[in-house]
Each structure stands twice: as structure tokens, then as C-alpha cells.
């Protein structure tokens, strides 16, 4: 066994020498990572759901009765050039009447001489412009255009949604940190146990002149292995679960694969570090 191979062999020896301990370590880390994955997925799903709802948000802009059609056209073109505007739909008096008729089943305005419904513009926005502040500013800007009688958008709903989203992200961040801390502590614990089991060996190897890094490498590998295997297995289970069970009632949004890969790499690094910290003390 050469000096380079020793830590690797030792690592395998330690794992297979105590299969039960290794299995329980792996299992509980797997469970923790599964929790993390589920929290992450929930966050993504909720987020996607809300973003999808948000993307249907429209602002309605009603014109004054006495505004000439030419001015309406002008305003329409001006608004279309404004920042963040994705699309504009013009609703004429007749279109509004038709829409009401479709809605109510009969033409309720049959008796009227004049059509009382106003002309309006329906504005939709680009996704990154759908903040309550930005829309408020936008409203402020077009309010100053004379001839616009009323501007409506679901401001209350938007603000509520934003608060919810920020709470979701805060809670997810908190949970994520909590779970990751637990993972790190757990790895340190598992490694400490492994180190304790091999304490006698470590002490004698130190006396024979082995370096600290040399002796702690197997345990760092062990930590890395636990974290990496558990995190990969966690995602595998999640993907299998999603493939097995079709969720009719809502669409589950998994994080993109690159994020998952990064996550597993970070987990492995945490495992490596945890192994280092766990092995450090008794040396």
C-alpha cells in the first residue's frame, strides 16, 4: 500500500468494517437531504405557481367619454413604447358591449340609446416588470396623461402575493440553513464516531511519524462520501417519485439539473469539511 493509496484503502476499510454505522449515517443524511430537496421543490413550485398567476396580471386603463378617437390612438401608441409594456389590447365601446353581452347571455343594453361603456386599454407587462412598486410608478406616469379617466390593476392582490412570496423565500432560506447545519453537525458526529473507533490506530500512527493530514484524509473521504452519496440518492428518489406519481392537481417544479449538480458538489464539500473538523480534534 503506497502512501497515496493508504487513505483511500483506509476509507474503504473503515466503511466496510462498520457497515451498520455507515448505513445509519448514510440513511439519516439521506433523510435530511430529502427534506432539503422537498423544501426546495415546494419553494420552486409555490414560486412558479405565483409567477404564473402574476404573469396574467393586467392593467386596465379607461378613457374619458369625450376624448376624440385620434387622441386615444395616440395615447395607445405612446403607452406601447413605455418601459416594461409587453402588449396592449384596445377595447372599443362596441367590443365592451359585446363582451358584456357574452357575459350576461342577453344584450342588457338593448334599451339604451347610447352605449355607456367606456373605451379601454388592457396592458400586460414583461415578467421582470411585475412588481408592485414598478406598477405603481407606471400608473403614476400614465395618470398624468389627460383624458384617462381611470386606471385599474389588482394592487391589493399584487402586494399580498409579493408578501407571500417573500415569506416563502424567507422560510425556505431559514429551513435550508437549518437543514444544512444539521447535515454538517451530523457528518461531524459520524466522523467523530469513526475516529473514536480508530483512535488507538491513530495514536500509534502518530507516534510512528504519520502526519495529521495523512491520518485525517480517510475520514475526510468518509464525510465526503456520506454527503455526496446521500445528496445524490436524495435527488434520485425525488426524481423517481415524480416519475412514479403523477400529480394531477398541481404541477411540481424541480430545480434545474445544473442547480442539483451544484448542490451535490456543495454537499460533498461540506462533507469533506465536516470530515476534517470531525477528525481534527483527537489528532
Amino acid at each position, binding site marked *: 500500500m*503506497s502512501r497515496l493509496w493508504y487513505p483511500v484503502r483506509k476509507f474503504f476499510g473503515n466503511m466496510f468494517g462498520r457497515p451498520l454505522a455507515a448505513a445509519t449515517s448514510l440513511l439519516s443524511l439521506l433523510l435530511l437531504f430529502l427534506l432539503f430537496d422537498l423544501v426546495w421543490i415546494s419553494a420552486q413550485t409555490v414560486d412558479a405557481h405565483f409567477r404564473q398567476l402574476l404573469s396574467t396580471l393586467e392593467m386596465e386603463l379607461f378613457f374619458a367619454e369625450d376624448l376624440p378617437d385620434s387622441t386615444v390612438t395616440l395615447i395607445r401608441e405612446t403607452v406601447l413604447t413605455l418601459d416594461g409594456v409587453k402588449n396592449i389590447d384596445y377595447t372599443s365601446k362596441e367590443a365592451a358591449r359585446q363582451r358584456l353581452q357574452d357575459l350576461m347571455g342577453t344584450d342588457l343594453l338593448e334599451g339604451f340609446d347610447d352605449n355607456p361603456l367606456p373605451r379601454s386599454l388592457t396592458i400586460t407587462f414583461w415578467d421582470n416588470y411585475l412588481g408592485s412598486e414598478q406598477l405603481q410608478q407606471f400608473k403614476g406616469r400614465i395618470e398624468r396623461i389627460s383624458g384617462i379617466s381611470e386606471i385599474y390593476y389588482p394592487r391589493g392582490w399584487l402586494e399580498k402575493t409579493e408578501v407571500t412570496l417573500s415569506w416563502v423565500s424567507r422560510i425556505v432560506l431559514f429551513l435550508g440553513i437549518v437543514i444544512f447545519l444539521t447535515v454538517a453537525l451530523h457528518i461531524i458526529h459520524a466522523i467523530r464516531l469513526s475516529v473514536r473507533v480508530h483512535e488507538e490506530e491513530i495514536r500509534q500512527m502518530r507516534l510512528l511519524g504519520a502526519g495529521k493530514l495523512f491520518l485525517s484524509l480517510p475520514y475526510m473521504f468518509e464525510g465526503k462520501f456520506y454527503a455526496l452519496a446521500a445528496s445524490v440518492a436524495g435527488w434520485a428518489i425525488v426524481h423517481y417519485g415524480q416519475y412514479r406519481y403523477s400529480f394531477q392537481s398541481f404541477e411540481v417544479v424541480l430545480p434545474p439539473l445544473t442547480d442539483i449538480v451544484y448542490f451535490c458538489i456543495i454537499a460533498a464539500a461540506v462533507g469533506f469539511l465536516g470530515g476534517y473538523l470531525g477528525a481534527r480534534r483527537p489528532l
Partner: protein
Amino acid sequence: MDKQNTAVELVDIKLSNDAGACLFEGLNLSLAQGETAIIIGPTGVGKTSLVELLCGCRRQDAGTVIIFGQPVKIGNGHTLTAVRRKIGGVGGIFKLISYQTVYENLLAPLIICGERPSVQKTRVNQVLMDFRLQSKKCDKARELSRGQQILVMLARAIIADQPLLIIDEPLAGLDAAMAGEVLELLRRFSVAGHTMVILSTGRTGLEIPNAKVLYIKDGILQ
């Protein structure tokens, strides 16, 4: 004495135990390469403590420990490991790794000093033959009797050509035949040029040619 040839040098060592009682004060020792020192002292006088000092396992209150020209200091990781690789130890703080086989125990010093695997194998097998331990090769160390354990430790102490051997109580608990065998090995080591520090409670039976015999008394070596 020529500095270059000095294997072990203890200068003005002072050491107290945890209770504050002084074990050594102004202890000096100088050992040339290839020399053997037999240090005799009754139980509790601090022989094992002296070994701990030589290996950098315990911090002296004052004085310096120099092994092959390198100062031994706790905390100075790099020189400490370098020094320890030159020391083969038997008994006292040096123990076998109980749950490993004899083969694995003998492999350890070779792995640590970075020997090539093929060399490792031949070396271990050669030493096992020299010490007539072939039949115990795959036994766990904890299943050996004390005499066999001492033999294995002696084998481990020279397997990587460690120039300095520290042997704490070599003949304790051995029967006459085994004691003779161990003594014979020690003589061979001495002839082969190893520097040796042998610690024992009594002189009886420890006849090694050209050995300096020192007594620990009143905290110094006499």
C-alpha cells in the same frame, strides 16, 4: 562529542508531573550514534515520562530535546513527524494496534515513510521470517500473548531501518527463554549500529556489550 554524530541530546531537562512534584531537574543525556544507553530506575521514577519527552508527546518545563540534530517540540508538526519516523519504539507508550493483524502492524512504518508497495511486501515477509513470526502473520495483535507482542513490536521498531530504538521495559513478563531471545535481538540491533535507549526497573539480565548504564536518581541521570 561531535555534534554530527549525536543521536540523542537532552539538555537541562526539567519536568514535573501534574501534581506539581518534580520528576527531573537539570537532567542531561548525550548519546552518540550507535551507542546504547540502559536507563535504570525504580517504578514511578519517570522512565516512561522520559520516553514521552523523546517522542514529543509531553512538554518539558525547561530544557531542550534534540534527536539527530533536530529539536523536538510539540506543535512543530513537520519536524516532529520527521523525528518520529526515525524512532522505533517498544513497550510503554508504544503499543500494537490491537484490532489489526501482525502483518498490518508491521506495514505501518513502511507506509508512513513512503516505501514502494513491492518493497513493503518483501520487507515485511523478511522481517517476519527473521523474527520467526510467519505463523502469526494473520493473527490480530490482541490475540497474541505478551511475549509475541513484544517480538512484533521489536520487528516494527526496525522494519523501516529506524536508527533510534526506544525500548521501555523489554523483559517484563517474559519467561527465561523468551527473555534470552529478546536480549539476543537487542544485541544484534546494537551491533547493527542502531542507537538504543533501554529503560528498565532492574539491571538483571540486561547484558549488552558497550552499553552505558545510567541510573535515574534525584531527578538526574547518574
